[in-house]
Structure formats: structure tokens, C-alpha cells
């Protein structure tokens, strides 16, 4: 089994999920509460990765972070390296690719929190941030957890975007799915089966634990 690929995929998924938590929660709060009339444009952009072919998405991200783009040039100027075909580049692409899988459950969960509870918090003297961490998040956590799991699992299984952005560099950009593709290409079905099975089991385990936790959690903290 390609342990380096597995380690890389787990690292990529974990970091992607973390970045999505940090970026996705504020974005989701804004989407849940904003009454801006053009909000639906933002919603559409966030949802775009769901329907775009990974190759299309990967292609544009590659252009956007490439050496000729302002982003790519700025990154190169700061770090002295390029983003494409690096782990960092892969992370950027994964965050964009998994964005809807985090933001949509986050938004749904935050929208279900009774607005009056938030107003009650304000009237009791708590600011936006304190209200978010003390009221909104504790009440929305099952949905937030769902978003975390979905974006983690989605990143773990991504293929097309990785291929476009990262290529196939062992230990840097060769993720599990690329590794499996390699093994199949080399007609090494035994190894491909082993890696695939490991991925299936792992995914199942993560989901089972999550749903189990969520069920216990709901019993512990009735959120209604």
C-alpha cells in the first residue's frame, strides 16, 4: 500500500477542513443572516464546485495561481516558490473545490438557530463574536460537524482537481486517488484493491462515528 499517499491525503484533508472552518463559518453566517439583495450571486458562486467538472475547476485554479497571475506572482515573491504542483497549491484548490460541502451545511445549520436567541444575547450585552461562539455555534454544531465531515471526505476522494493542479509527485501531490489510478494503470489490481478497500473502510468509519456522535449529541443537548 502507498502509505505516503495515504499520509498525504489525510494531511491535505485535515488542513483543507481546518481552512474551511475558519473561512466557511464567517461566510456561512453572512449567508444565513444577510439581507443583501444580490446575495444569491454569492450563493451561486459558492455552489459552483458542485456542478463544475473538476478539470474545468482545476484548469482555472491553475491559471489563477500560475506564475503569470497576480496571485501566483505575489506568492512567488513572498515565498520564492510557485504554487502549482506544490502541496500549498493543492491546498488552495482543495479549499475551493470543497467549499460548498462545508459552507452549505454550515449555512443551513446557522439559519435554523432562532434569530430571537441571537437578539436576546445582544440585549444581554454580548457582541457579535461572543454571541456566535456562545449561542450560534453551540446550537448549530450538528450541522457544522456534518459540514466538517463532508468536506473532509470530499477532499479525501478528490481526483480531477489534484491531477490538474498537483500532478503526480510522490510525497508532495500524489494523493490516494492518484495512487490508485497509477496502480490500475500499471495493472497492479491487487494493490489498487488494497488501497481502495482501505479508503472505503476509513470513509465508512468516519461517517459512522460522526452520525453516532451526532445522535448522542442531540440526546445530550436538545437543540430543537
Amino acid at each position, binding site marked *: 500500500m502507498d502509505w505516503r499517499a495515504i499520509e498525504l491525503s489525510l494531511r491535505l484533508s485535515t488542513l483543507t477542513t481546518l481552512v474551511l472552518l475558519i473561512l466557511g463559518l464567517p461566510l456561512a453566517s453572512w449567508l444565513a443572516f444577510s439581507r443583501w439583495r444580490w446575495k444569491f450571486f454569492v450563493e451561486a458562486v459558492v455552489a459552483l464546485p458542485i456542478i463544475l467538472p473538476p478539470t474545468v475547476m482545476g484548469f482555472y485554479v491553475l491559471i489563477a495561481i500560475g506564475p503569470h497571475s497576480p496571485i501566483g506572482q505575489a506568492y512567488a515573491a513572498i515565498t520564492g516558490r510557485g504554487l502549482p504542483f506544490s502541496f500549498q497549491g493543492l491546498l488552495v484548490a482543495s479549499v475551493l473545490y470543497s467549499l460548498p460541502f462545508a459552507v452549505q451545511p454550515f449555512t443551513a445549520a446557522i439559519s435554523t438557530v*432562532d434569530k*430571537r*436567541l441571537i*437578539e*436576546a*444575547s*445582544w*440585549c*444581554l*450585552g*454580548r*457582541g457579535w463574536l461572543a454571541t456566535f461562539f*456562545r*449561542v450560534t455555534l*453551540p*446550537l448549530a454544531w450538528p450541522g457544522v460537524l456534518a459540514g466538517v465531515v463532508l468536506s473532509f471526505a470530499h477532499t479525501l476522494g478528490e481526483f480531477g482537481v489534484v491531477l490538474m493542479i498537483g500532478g503526480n509527485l510522490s510525497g508532495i501531490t500524489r494523493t490516494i486517488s492518484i495512487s490508485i489510478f497509477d496502480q490500475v494503470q500499471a495493472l497492479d489490481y491487487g494493490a489498487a484493491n488494497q488501497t481502495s478497500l482501505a479508503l472505503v473502510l476509513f470513509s465508512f468509519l468516519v461517517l459512522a462515528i460522526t452520525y453516532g456522535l451526532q445522535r448522542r449529541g442531540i440526546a445530550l*443537548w*436538545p*437543540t*430543537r
Partner: protein
Amino acid sequence: MADALTLRFRKTFPKGALIDAELQVGLNPPIVTVLFGPSGSGKTTILRALAGLECSANCVIHFGPETWVDDKTGVFIPPQRRRIGFLFQDYALFSHLTVAGNVRYGLIGLSANEQRRRISELLERFQLQDLSSRYPDQLSGGQRQRVALARTLAPQPRLLLLDEPLSALDGPTREALRGELRHLLSSLGIPVLLVTHDRVEALALGDQVAIVNEGRIVQHASIEEVFRRPLTPAIAKIVAIDTVQRVRVLQADEEFVTIAVGEARLIAAARDFPSGATEAFVCIRAEDVLLLKSVETVSASARNRLPGIVKSLTHEGPMWRIELDCGFTLTALLTRQACEELALQENDRVLAMIKATNVHLISRS
């Protein structure tokens, strides 16, 4: 005015409803002002504007010397910095926090010791000691209301805003808590604004009442004044005055006004009835109408004696509501006992007596 809460709030809502309210409430001595009106009249919106939960491009709010909102200068003090207490209609308790956690929530900037002292003080005051580690969904409606009150009062607000504080309770609990709430509100020593559409609640809880109708405050005075002497027939309807009739003015002097309702004649205390008016509305509260069997001959101080026929009797809690035909429809409210003593039945002939001071006139101008 330095010692008053003043509000001007104008807002048009997308569905066409308009709020155009002006209100001034004295802060010293602190009193309970009831915002009373039918559902959808804009009472809650006015209350939310005071809390800073509702904003408008056309709004000015002053609290004593402080400016909370001023559309001219762009001042808007957020709810967090107004130091007010807001009790939501269904209490809005935090379901993920215990009773103690809910009460603790607004205690900001106190040491752990002070917090503990204040919480136990409040739990004791609202008889919640035994419930302190329960979650809101393990409480009854009355207990939830007490938790919400304790939580609202914990940070020692300077102004208390209550949105239909009793409407989330079932009938018997509501009646039991009405008295308790009145007692609490008068013991707080801070001004209170309370929204309700329940007449009994308004009468029981308020010192002053502001009638809200279609987004406007149409009359603001003492409870007694507004419920006895509404300014317009519309307000008479809102405060549920039972008999409102269009009448002709026959004669008016300094003291009394004689009016004709169909065939019947009535005498009303003149008060400040405009002398030139020829037409008016008469308002008579059912509880101010006394009934006698017409066979009896009596001497009474009431100026108005109207013979009438009982049209219907309806049961209303401990009271009976009796509709009479006195040439116009007059409603009387009698206790069950009085009703039994008179042995009233439909089509009985009775004599209705009304004091001239209880006949309120609204001139039609």
C-alpha cells in the same frame, strides 16, 4: 426632555404596513406603560425599536440625557450598549444552557464570586434554586417565564421591555402569574414598557397605556382615562367598550349634555364636551350598567333610567353579558349572583340605570 424616554419611529414595511409612532414616557417616577392594541398594529415593532433590534432611516430615540438613535447625526447605540432588559414573547431561553447558565449569560465583567452571589440571589428571588441545573425544555411555562425574567434582570437593566409576557402561558397559569408580575414590576424601581393585546393584562399591569392602532399611537394617558374616555370611536372599539352608538345632541349646558339615541334620552356629564357639537358618539361600558326589574319602584342617584327588553344572556366566566333592547342595543355585565336574584330571562322587561358620569361622549367633528 431630560427625564423622559422619547421615541419617534417611522418605517414602511415591504408589505405596505406603516409604523409612524411618537411616544414620550416619563422616567421619574418609574412607571409601567402598556402598549396596547390589536395584533399587527405595530406594538412589538415599537418595542424592538427601543431595544435597538429594529432600525429605520427615520428614527430618533432619547433616553434621559442619552441619545440612542438620531437619524440626523447617524447615531445608533447598539442593543448591547443600551443596558436594557428585553423579555421575548416566548422567552427565547438558550436551550443549550442550564437555568443557572441562562441567568449567568448577561453577567459580564463580574468576578466569579460576584457572579455566583448574583446568580444565587436571583435564583432565590424567582424560586429557581432547585431548578438551577435543569435545561429549559425540562421546565413548565411558568418556570420558563421566571427564568427569562431572572436572566433579563441579572445585568440590572435601566429599562425593562416586555413583549406579551404572559401570552406563552396557559390560561390558569396566566391568571396566577398576572398578579405576581404586577407586584414584581412595581418593586423593580425601573421604568417598564409592556406590549399586550389582552385587555385584562393591560388593566392589571399598567399605570399608563398607549393605544397603538395601525402603526400610530392614538391615545396615551392613564389606564383609567383611556379605558373610560377613549378619544375616538376606533379607540373605544380597541379598549372594548361594549356600547358605542351614534347620537344626536339635544341640549348642552355647563354640567350636563342631553342626547337622543333613537327614542331614548340619555344625560351625560358635560366634562369638556364642545358646546357647539350637534352629533356625537356615546360610549357606555357594560360594567357601568345596572339592571332592575321594571316592576320595582326605586329611588336611585343614577340620572339615566332606560326601560328595555332582555334580548340575550351569555355566560362570560363568572359574569353574564346581557344584551338589552332600549331602542338601541345596550350591553350590561352582571355577576351570576345578581343575575339569579333578578331571575333574568329572555324577553324580560327591565330598567337599565347608568350614572351620567359613566356616559362618555365623543363629539363628531
